[in-house]
């Protein structure tokens, strides 16, 4: 476990050692702040609902940029050979990288705290809903990160890792949209809805932390971390 934490710390540091980390954080804060204030002052309601409902879209671009280099760059520069010949198991290395990206997400969200503070000062929002929104965003983000890390472990090219992660996450997201589901037979539609990242996020946004949604996100994360560890274990990235 010590090694997982050591690795996670080093990875988190390296987000801030290179400009990319700051660029990603800056883009996130500007995009989410701008999109939020637009609707906030339009509807004049003391709620963060519009903020959180944009999160799936904003994070769709942000998190793949965070995870794209994590394995692809290690493979390209050869440091994967250093890392994986240290006394760490594949799954420990995967966990370390997951934790660092997750910590980065937590830091991003902490920087959005001025928004709820402002709303609390301006009106009487439902604080439980706000908390549920943040928790839901963490679960959603964890799933995005796990998918992004896995994709990064099967390519050497960061750009491909970014785009492929974006497409896969989008596919999982759209699987629950009525636009697609209405064209399908009802049994298929039901499965699509259950598998969709969107369905479960929407129910969390309503302030309901249901067990089935939590189980869904946790299993998504575990599945992709497992696939990631397997891809790393196979080492067939010549």
């Amino acid at each position, binding site marked *: 476990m010590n090694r997982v934490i050591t690795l996670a710390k080093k990875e988190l540091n390296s987000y801030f050692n290179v400009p990319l980390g700051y660029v990603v954080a800056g883009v996130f804060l500007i995009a989410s702040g701008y999109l939020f204030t637009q609707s906030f002052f339009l509807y004049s309601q003391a709620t963060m609902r519009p903020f959180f409902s944009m999160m799936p879209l904003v994070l769709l671009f942000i998190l793949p940029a965070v995870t794209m280099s994590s394995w692809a760059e290690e493979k390209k520069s050869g440091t994967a050979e*250093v890392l994986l*010949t*240290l*006394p760490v198991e594949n799954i420990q290395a995967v966990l370390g990288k997951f934790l660092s990206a997750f910590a980065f997400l937590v830091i991003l969200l902490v920087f959005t705290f001025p928004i709820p503070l402002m709303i609390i000062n301006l009106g009487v929002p439902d604080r439980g809903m706000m908390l549920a929104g943040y928790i839901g965003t963490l679960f959603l983000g964890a799933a995005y990160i796990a998918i992004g890390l896995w994709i990064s472990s099967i390519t050497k090219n960061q750009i491909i890792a970014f785009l492929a992660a974006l497409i896969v996450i989008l596919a999982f997201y759209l699987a629950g949209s009525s636009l697609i589901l209405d064209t399908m037979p009802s049994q298929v539609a039901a499965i699509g809805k259950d598998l969709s990242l969107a369905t479960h996020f929407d129910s969390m946004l309503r302030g309901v932390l249901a067990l089935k949604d939590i189980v869904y996100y946790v299993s998504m994360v575990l599945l992709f971390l497992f696939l990631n560890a397997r891809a790393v274990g196979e*080492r067939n990235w010549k």
Partner: protein
Amino acid sequence: MIKVENLSKKYGDFTALRDVSFELGEGEVVGLLGPNGAGKTTLLRILVSYLKPSDGKVEIGGMNTQKPILEQKIKSMIGYLPEQAPLYEDMLVREYLEFIGNMQGIGEDAIDSRVDEVIKKCGLKDKENAELTTLSKGYRQRVGIAQALIHNPKIVILDEPTTGLDPNQRIEIRDLIKEIGKDRTVILSSHILSEVQSTCSRVIIINHGKIVADGTPETLEQTGRGNSFIKIEVREIADGLVEKLRGIEGVVEAKASGHDIDIEVRKENDIRSQVAEAVVGSGAGLLLLERKQTSLEDIFIELTNKENE
């Protein structure tokens, strides 16, 4: 310390290693020699548990590397410098060594003194706080070697530690390897012979994934199957001299060019005195006579070319 039995590695249809077996004792310094693409890196990667063999068995310190439960224990016995010395470019030298040390299980209380020790040993004192991306090739290799030594491993495996270095850096790294080899088992790969000859007590030559020779540099020189050569220089080549030389027993061929004559002699035969007599007798005026030893280089070329045919 290291025991390799009937090791094979296939990538799809391509066989990178076939039926490789050898055993290394404690404290041996071994050079793994072969042309590019011979399978050196593949073999080393299997020894450090980075790749899995397709067939065969590797034992490190009596432990089978195929047993998942032993893998971490085996990995921490080995220090490894991969080819090209890959490093986390965004880190500082000291920070990087601390990271590797922590990953090797060195606690916070001991890490500083360990890092100081390898920094000193590898001559990195001036660069301690430099960013890795700014380092020259020679310093990168040293950082790579320092990270391989950080946990004081019993076995050190270096993949082409001197490739791409200038002659001075090469000598420095060579001295460093000699120093390291005093109290541990070292395997280094190279395609440069002089390197291996000067640092290693044993040489294993591989080609096309097979071991073609294994022994001390001296025994390998003796087992070279090539003919030896005598080179003479004369003031003037007298008539009939070349023919006369060809007549000496053991001579395969004698060729004159300018004032030089190259004589190819079947191994085992030392005919220098006969040659000298013949030259002096013909009144040619002997200026130089030397026997060219079959060097490890010749053996290497001979062994690795034969396989190609």
